[in-house]
């Protein structure tokens, strides 16, 4: 039995088509990522799979249960950490877990043991009696994860779990999720952090305009892209519009500036190296470093979604803005 089986899932908001006839399966024990730009349909998909939203058409079975017909039964089998869901700030971390446990109908003795274990694993046991309103966003997210796992579900959904978190909290959560998955919990993750998906997921689906445009393991996705080589070069000084000049070289398909380095995409590696050397000589530039890179998942993502590096930066910026907003709270 698959942990998730979605068939022709479609969701309209009025006339707007948010999710367009998507079908996929997630195997038990898999770490599955749904990657896409903002507004691509990630959250709508996760909300349909977790019984929070009815699809306009199509079906989805989660742990073998029809989520459209029996959303409450599905919720009893899964854990959900949604981007917008927060623990109750007026209650302590412990009381939040006890409340979640009571709605999952867990026996009193069992709920205490489970809560203790989870709070210890997530590093917040010592702060269990503090009100959540005193917690940072990272700590609140840990409480939300503990609440979602209180009934030891075999499938955990996470919608942008590390969005806007500080580096330490994000790393801690990633490590926790990795260990949870190793213990056998199936994880369905949506994220717009491409590196995060690359690091954690067994398979990734890329969604754009409500449609899945690629579904494979990160390495397979990258290997499909390996026909294109990437050269990263840095010069001893900056020349105005250097990237525009390099982009005009005959073998170069595109160029991206990364700090003091310039990333050059080409299908003719030896000739491009020659052209870069000539370009450096002609412009009286000294090459400080030159490296070849394997394509990253971000490269695959850019190619498939048709987003520019500016769009990716914007996505990352949204992440940073969320972080700032969280700090301001």
């Amino acid at each position, binding site marked *: 039995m698959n942990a998730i089986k979605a068939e022709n899932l479609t969701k309209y*908001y009025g006339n707007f088509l948010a999710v367009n006839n998507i079908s996929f399966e997630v195997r038990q024990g898999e770490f599955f990522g749904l990657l896409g730009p903002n507004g691509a349909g990630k959250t709508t998909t996760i909300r349909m799979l*977790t019984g*929070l*939203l*009815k699809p306009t058409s199509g079906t989805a079975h989660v742990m073998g249960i029809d989520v459209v017909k029996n959303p*409450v*039964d599905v*919720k*009893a089998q899964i854990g*959900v950490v*949604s981007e*917008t*869901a*927060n*623990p*109750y*700030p*007026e*209650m302590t971390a412990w009381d939040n877990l006890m*409340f*979640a446990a*009571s*709605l*999952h*109908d867990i026996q009193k003795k069992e709920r205490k043991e489970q809560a203790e274990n989870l709070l210890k694993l997530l590093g917040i046991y010592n702060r269990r009696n503090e009100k959540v309103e005193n917690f940072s966003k990272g700590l609140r997210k840990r409480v*939300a994860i503990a*609440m*979602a796992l209180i009934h030891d579900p075999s499938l955990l959904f996470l919608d942008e779990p590390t969005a806007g978190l500080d580096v330490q909290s994000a790393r801690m959560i990633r490590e926790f999720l990795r260990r949870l998955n190793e213990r056998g919990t199936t994880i369905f993750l949506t994220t717009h952090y491409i590196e995060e998906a690359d690091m954690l997921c067994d398979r990734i689906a890329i969604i754009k305009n409500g449609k899945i445009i690629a579904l494979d393991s990160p390495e397979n996705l990258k290997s499909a892209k390996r026909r294109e080589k990437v050269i990263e070069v840095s010069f001893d000084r900056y020349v105005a519009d250097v990237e525009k000049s390099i982009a005009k070289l005959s073998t170069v398909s595109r160029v991206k500036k990364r700090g003091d380095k310039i990333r050059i995409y080409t299908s003719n590696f030896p000739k491009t190296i020659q052209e870069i050397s000539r370009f450096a000589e002609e412009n009286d530039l000294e090459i400080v470093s030159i490296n070849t890179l394997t394509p990253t998942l971000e490269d695959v993502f850019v190619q498939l979604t048709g987003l520019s590096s500016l769009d990716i930066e914007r996505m990352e910026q949204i992440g940073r803005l969320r972080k700032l907003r969280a700090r301001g709270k």
Partner: protein
Amino acid sequence: MRKNTVKNLRKAAYIAWKDVRIYYFSTPTVMMGLLFPVLMFLTFWIGRGLSVSEALPGLAALTVFFGSSSIGVTTLALERTKGTFDTQLAMPVSLLTIILGKTIASFLYGLTITIIPVGILAVVSHHQVASPLLLLISIAFSAIASAGLGMILSASAKHVHEAMTPLNIIRIPMMFISGIFAPITSLPAILQYIAYIMPLTHMVSSLQYALLGLGNIQIFLINMGALVLYTMLFMIIAAKRLENSLE
């Protein structure tokens, strides 16, 4: 089926207890609960030449009606703003169970803030309550119907004011045609028909019987039946509106 019903009722009770703990024990809520009936009574009583006894049914009706319908609106909208409502939605509870839980909490609040001042005033004014048991039943049924009304308007509101404004548009005119300030029989015929489909009218009528002995037991039972129907209707509509608001 029966096992499921018991389970859902238990979950509704957990939600109600959570609401009571978080919101109803807070200082502003307790203060509002204490001040509201006092101000309501003074507004209703001063300058009208009524005895305390005559004013009691009106005071009780307004307190239970405004108290129970307001508090649920506040908690649901606040939870939506804070993102805690989504946490609840992710749990294995139906929308009707969530609405029921919140209605129970609002009912308990309305019941408490009505019984205490009515009890104190009855003792202080040496008023002989016609039937203390029917008074308790009447306040309880009124509280739960009022809580249900509040739920309808809060079900789709994302902020407190989005629910409070339409709630007041409904509640305030209702106050003037429900028999609190003037007997229904003195109203124009069209308003009399409207009055009888208003839940507040049935609250006032049942409280007048329980506190003063006005009317008869048949009318009291009809009023109770009407309030039960209103409660069920309000909760079903609230759950439906809540479902639509999640789209």
